[in-house]
């Protein structure tokens, strides 16, 4: 393989990794605060893409307006998801929450099929992103660079929020212990809602960029990326934002490299993430930078 091709693959891997990271952050935030896998997260991501699509394709809005609206709408969707499917079961046995998450995911996928039609649509990526740049003889889409940059910007803001603001401290407190945080004056419900909304907003950004990079969109497009992003979060260390990012990039890059170097295995591309998951769960279940949560007997 030529250096140029390798560089192309690497750029794609980093791009894909950024997208996984953006979605993974949403999973890890929700898991950290509720000990719940938000199965519907991948479908929230899908809805954002469709919101943006309809903004441009049907309502003929300029792309930046459409994207902004899509992100806001998705945040609202995240709010209602939490309020409708998870909050009523806050004190129910874990398995009910899990089933509700699956049910919400299923419902969103089917609603999307009914509302948007099951056949794939073509995402209208604005020209500014599809333009190519040539570096050392290698032609790469501008988008491929744009994605990691945007991801890192949002990540920077998120880490600032978590580590240097009152809300961020409240989030970390609730993640540790709901009851104690509530005694300390934190409005636990509000924080949980905030976490869901933030996660959904990030997923929306990821969804829109995903739609631009992989322009064929369909109602089930969120399933695989959602699962893989969750796996990325686990690999990095579930509950830990930096871990989600590390996991996301790791998964994205290795996935692309696997196909690049072993093209005969490209059919197994999706299975690869799951194999990684099993391996990590067996060797170091707390993830690369995770911490052990002991159970009191």
């Amino acid at each position, binding site marked *: 393989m030529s250096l140029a091709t390798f560089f192309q693959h690497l750029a794609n891997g980093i791009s894909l990794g950024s997208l996984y990271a953006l979605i993974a952050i949403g999973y890890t935030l929700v898991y950290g605060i509720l000990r719940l896998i938000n199965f519907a997260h991948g479908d929230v991501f899908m809805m954002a893409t469709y919101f943006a699509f309809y903004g441009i394709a049907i309502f003929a809005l300029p792309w930046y307006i459409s994207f902004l609206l899509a992100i806001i709408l998705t945040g609202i969707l995240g709010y209602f998801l939490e309020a409708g499917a998870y909050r009523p*079961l806050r004190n129910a046995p874990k*398995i009910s929450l*899990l089933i509700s998450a699956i049910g919400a995911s*299923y419902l969103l996928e089917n609603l999307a099929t009914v509302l948007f039609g099951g056949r794939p649509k073509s995402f209208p990526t604005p020209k500014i992103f599809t333009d190519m740049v040539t570096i050392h003889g290698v032609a790469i889409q501008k988008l491929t660079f744009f994605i990691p940059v945007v991801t890192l910007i949002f990540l920077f803001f998120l880490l600032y929020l978590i580590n240097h603001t009152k809300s961020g401290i409240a989030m970390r407190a609730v993640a540790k212990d709901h009851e104690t945080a509530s005694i300390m004056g934190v409005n636990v419900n509000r924080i949980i809602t905030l976490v869901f909304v933030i996660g959904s907003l990030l997923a929306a950004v990821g969804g829109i960029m995903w739609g631009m990079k992989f322009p064929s969109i369909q109602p089930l497009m969120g399933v695989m990326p959602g699962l893989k992003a969750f796996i990325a979060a686990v690999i990095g260390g579930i509950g830990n934002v930096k871990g989600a990012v590390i996991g996301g990039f790791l998964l994205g890059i290795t996935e692309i490299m696997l196909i690049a170097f072993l093209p005969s295995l490209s059919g197994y591309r*999706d299975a690869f993430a799951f194999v990684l*998951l099993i391996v990590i769960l067996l060797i170091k279940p707390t993830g690369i930078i995770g911490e052990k949560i002991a159970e009191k007997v």
Partner: protein
Amino acid sequence: MKRNTILTLISLAILAIAIYFIDQNLDSYKVRILNLCAIYVILAVSMNLINGFTGLFSLGHAGFMAVGAYTTAILTMPQAVKLQNFFMVPIAKPLETLNLPFLPALFVGGLLAAFVAFLIGAPVLRLKGDYLAIATLGFGEIIRVIFTNTQTITNGALGLKSIPNTSNLWWTFGFAAFTVIFIAFLINSSYGRALKAIREDETAAQSMGINLFKHKMLSFMVGAFFAGIGGGLLGNLLGTIDPNMFRFFLTYNLLLMIILGGMGSITGSIISAFIITIATEVLRFLDDGMTIGSLTIPGITGLRMVVFSALLMIVVLFFTQGLMGTKEFTWNKLLNRSQKPLAKGGRS
């Protein structure tokens, strides 16, 4: 013979007579639906063994079904049909001539599925709750991906067509009865109680001397065995299978069935398997539209599934216990007799 045994045998006889008459008299559309109902009973009850009775959140049932379906299909397809199917890439040589009658083919399918469960369970059953769910979901997907890529064994994405239509009401209801009786007997034995203990409180169960891993594996493998049989019956009913049939949607449907029926109830799973399978057919008009007289009401593709997913949400949010909760139908309860003394085997 004990009274309960006699009652059970009489009901089986009545079932057999009913099947005989239905087979002769009902149109093929309705017979097909009944076949599907019986198959889903097998699938729902076997999934309930793992999820409802042992408390393991396993989402990989579709994978075990796929193993059973493909195994049974390949073992029952005549050589000529195999050659027809594998036109792009020829089938692996030993499989081309391998042939078994339906019953052993089903059992081999079940055993193979149980073996796959053993391989998967070894790493995965040590995980708790959510992680187990994701891992089993992942394995279900891995199996599907493998089946899509092993052209020489499964014909890949092309799938298998013209599978012999050997499934009929006798086979499906026969196996449904066998599954229900086997699992009911297992649940009511000491092993079944151990599984329930694991569901209630793993730490306490372990401290009472129950080997968690061994018992979880038992539940997992038995559940997978019957899933494999269900898959085999399904393949030979539909006549055609492909890897995409066995996606997580299938497992979600089963999940809906066992939740609707009540996760700790075999009776509930049987009832809900019938309800959901029949409803799936009855609600077909939501997708396809319907004509009343001269009025045509259009359908929307996927509306049927929206109804089902909404149903799942409603049940889980408002009716956590489902239809039956953990209650079971028993002859004792029906006939309201006083129970035998516990020490002599009466139910507790």
